[in-house]
Structure formats: C-alpha cells, structure tokens
C-alpha cells in the first residue's frame, strides 16, 4: 500500500460566534442599533487540530457530543470555512453527512438520484450511466418511477446510501448514517467499505458505535472539546476512551 497522503490538516481552528440576542429580523436590527449591548460569545469548536490521512485508509473519529466531530467533517467538505489553519485534499471528496440530502419526496427515485448526483458535482451523463447500478445496489428495481413519499424508511435509506457510494469518490466522509437499514443491508455496506479501501479510496467515519469503529477503521482519532485527545491504533484509543468516561 502506498503511503501517499490524501488529506492533510494543519493547525486547524474554528470558532463559532454564539449570539445571545440574535437579530433575526430587519426591524430588530434597526432597534438594536440604538441599544449598546452586543452579546456575542466565542466558542472554540476546534482548537489547533493537525493530522494526516493516507490513501486507502479508513479513519474513525470518536468523541462525545459537542466535541467538534461534525464541524471537522464539514470543514473537510468545505461547507464551513476554518478561521485558521490549512486543509489540503487530493482527489474528490463526497460528503455523506445525512441520508438523502436534497431528496424531494414528491419526485421519483430516478429524478432524485439524478439531482443528488448533480449536486455532488457529476455530469448528467455520468449519473445516467450509473443509475442502473445504484438502483440495483439499493434493491429497488421495481420502484424506479415511484415517488419517494411512497417509500418506506428503509427503502429511502438504501437509495440514499447507494447513490452516495456509487458516485465513486476518492475520499468519502460518513457521519453517523449506518444505523439505518436492516442487518443484511448493513453487512452489504460494510463489504462496500472494504471494497472501497481495497480500491485505494479513503474513508473518514464518524460514529458513536465503538465496536463498528474498532472493526472497520485503521486509525482512530479521539476528539475532546475541540482538540485531539488521542490518535492511533483503534484498540488502544477506544480502550482509553472507554476508560475516561
């Protein structure tokens, strides 16, 4: 396996502004300009984070709620802009932060897959050529032209997952989405992850499911209150994490 680094994060920091009195309307804004008090608190969500991920590795990110896991993923996905530090990425990143982003229940499975693919940055031709494979992986051959509102939760989840996985990213960001679907579909998804890794793709996996992380990941990063508490072998990091709480 090559040791090419596909994701490099250096001294990354992110501060959120917490407004105690947020002006959500224009009139409130006009009124508040007469008042003096400006209540803004700064909350450091990520503090000086640095790490590298090699090609073909699966990195698990663990930590309690509010430790900055999702913020970190969002910065890697360029949805949020960091306040300082650098993120360098080689290849195409597919964020998979939620099942079925941009899905519209009034549209058919086919229309939704096309829109989702376009949102992720693929050309219409590329998506149409993958459509059949996506539907097949989701086991929804008989429902291509059914509106999503008539889908069960499981069918919906399968369609969303298959679409994300078939669009062939170099780096896949997964946030807490594998808890859906039945046993056999989860097994299928895990198999897909291993296949991914064997093809030299990189996966970053955020989860609270520790056994899953332990089984799947090559390295684990433990975030605590916005800084890296520990980074390394899954067995060791997860052991430390368990002991701490």
């Amino acid at each position, binding site marked *: 396996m090559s040791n090419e680094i596909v994701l490099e994060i250096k001294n990354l920091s992110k501060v959120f502004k917490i407004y105690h009195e947020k002006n959500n309307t224009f009139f409130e804004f006009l009124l508040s300009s007469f008042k003096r008090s400006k209540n803004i608190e700064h909350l450091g969500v990520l503090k000086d984070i640095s790490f590298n991920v090699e090609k073909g590795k699966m990195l698990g990110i663990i930590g309690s709620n509010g430790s900055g896991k999702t913020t970190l993923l969002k910065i890697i996905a*360029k*949805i*949020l802009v960091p306040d300082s530090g650098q993120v360098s990425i080689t290849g195409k990143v597919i964020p998979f932060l939620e099942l079925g982003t941009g899905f519209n229940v009034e549209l058919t499975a086919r229309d939704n897959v096309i829109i989702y693919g*376009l949102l992720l940055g693929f050309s219409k031709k590329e998506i149409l050529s993958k459509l059949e494979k996506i539907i097949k992986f989701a086991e929804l051959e008989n429902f291509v032209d059914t509106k999503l509102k008539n889908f069960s939760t499981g069918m919906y989840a399968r369609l969303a997952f298959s679409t994300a996985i078939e669009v062939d990213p170099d780096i896949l960001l997964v946030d807490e989405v594998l808890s859906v679907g039945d046993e056999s579909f989860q097994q299928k998804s895990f198999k897909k992850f291993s296949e991914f890794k064997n093809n030299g793709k990189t996966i970053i996996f955020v989860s609270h499911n520790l056994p899953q992380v332990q089984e799947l990941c090559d390295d684990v990063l433990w975030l605590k209150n916005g800084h890296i508490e520990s980074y390394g072998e899954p067995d060791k990091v997860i052991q430390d994490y368990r002991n701490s709480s």
Partner: protein
Amino acid sequence: MTSILMEIWQKRSLVFALALNDIKLRYKNSFLGFLWSFLEPLLILTVLLFVFTHVIKSTIESYPLYLLLGLIIWYMFSRSTSMGLSSLTDNAHIIQKIHLRKEIFVLSSCLTGFMMMLIEFAAFGVFLVAFSFIPPATAFLFPLLLIEILILSVGISLLLSIANVYFRDIKFIWQVVLQAGFFLSPIIYSLDMFPSDIRTILELNPISHLITIAHDLMLYGNLPAISSILYVLIITGSIFVLGCLVFKNKESKIGEEL
C-alpha cells in the same frame, strides 16, 4: 470573476435540473396543474378587463393585449425575485450538507420564473390569434428584453437572498414592495395619462421602462427611446455587479448563518 462564471457554466445542468424539478413540483406532474398556470393570469386578466373596460373606460389601444403583456412581464419579475429571495433559506438543508456555489440556487429560482413566463407567453399567443393581431416587426427584439429582465431579476435576487439569510423579514418587506410596484408600473394604465412631473417620478422605476418597452415592441411597433434603454441598462448593470460583489463577499459565511 471569469473563473466563477466558468464554474457556474459547468453546473448549468444542475441549474436546469433544479429549475425543471421546481416546475414539475409546482404543477405536481399533472395536466390540470399545468393548466393552472394559464388560468391564474387569465382569471386576473378577466377581472382587470371587466373593471377597466366597463367600470373605468380605458382608452388604450388593444387594451386586452396591453394588459396581458404587462401582467406577464410583471409576473416574471415578481416571481423570479420572490423565489430568488428565499432560494438560500429554502435550500438550507442542502447548503449545510454539500459544498456548492450558492449562486446556483438563486439562478435556478430565476430560471424557474423565466420558464413559467414562457408558459404564460403561450397563452399570450392564443390571445394574439383570438384578436387576429399580427405583432409588428419590432417584436423580433422582444427576446432581448426578456434576457434583460432575467439579468435584473438575478441581480436583485442575489442581493435579497443574502439579506434574507440575515434578516428573515426581508421576505415580507419585499412582498409589500412588490405590491406597491404592481400599481406603480404601467400594467393597468399607461404613463401617457399622467402630467409630465408625475410621469418623471414614475419613470424612476426601471420596471416602468421595461413594461413600456414591451408594449412598444410587441404591440405598437415603436423602437424604445435611447434614454429609456440606457437608464434600464445602467440600473440593471449596477444592481447586477453589486449583487455579485455582495454575494461573493458573504457566500462563505452563509453555511454558518443559515
């Protein structure tokens, strides 16, 4: 600037797909839904026609066509800007999950408004036949006018959509502005009816010029005044550039503010 345009051009199939889906959803994939887009302006047209031909006698030449054309232009502008205004907040769930140029949502909303106008324009065609009215040669310039209105709508939408992210009541303020704009534009009346000092004030509204130009090109065969064209182009150009600058400046912060 050019790199941004290139990037957006590469995303054109997404812009079109979003706009088409929007149209599909609006008409719920049904034929009656499609028919509604004809019925709505037709209904308003009927009411206005009744009031202004029977109650208040209008002296405008080919008044039904005059009225319908003004309505179509006005609807395109008001729909595009209202949909453009809420395009970022409406698509917050996508913007917070996928990195994209956010102009795409504003553009596709305005494109939806443009497509709806094209559908209504078909109704205008039916009226032309019904009145056996043959448009003058200047009607060939009409598409240019439509493009100009589209660019103006996009410029205004870029500004309003950002404003609406920060202040959620911009939406309601804009509805009031549009309501006023409807009566301050020569849709049901003609600017000629006013004394010159009132007319000068009404002509500050760029939409007034656009609707007058539409009437001239499509119905009366007059070329618009150079001063009118210049005024409209300067207003559109400055709003568009300002919109792009404000949008570019605020774009990266939208993800957090939504």
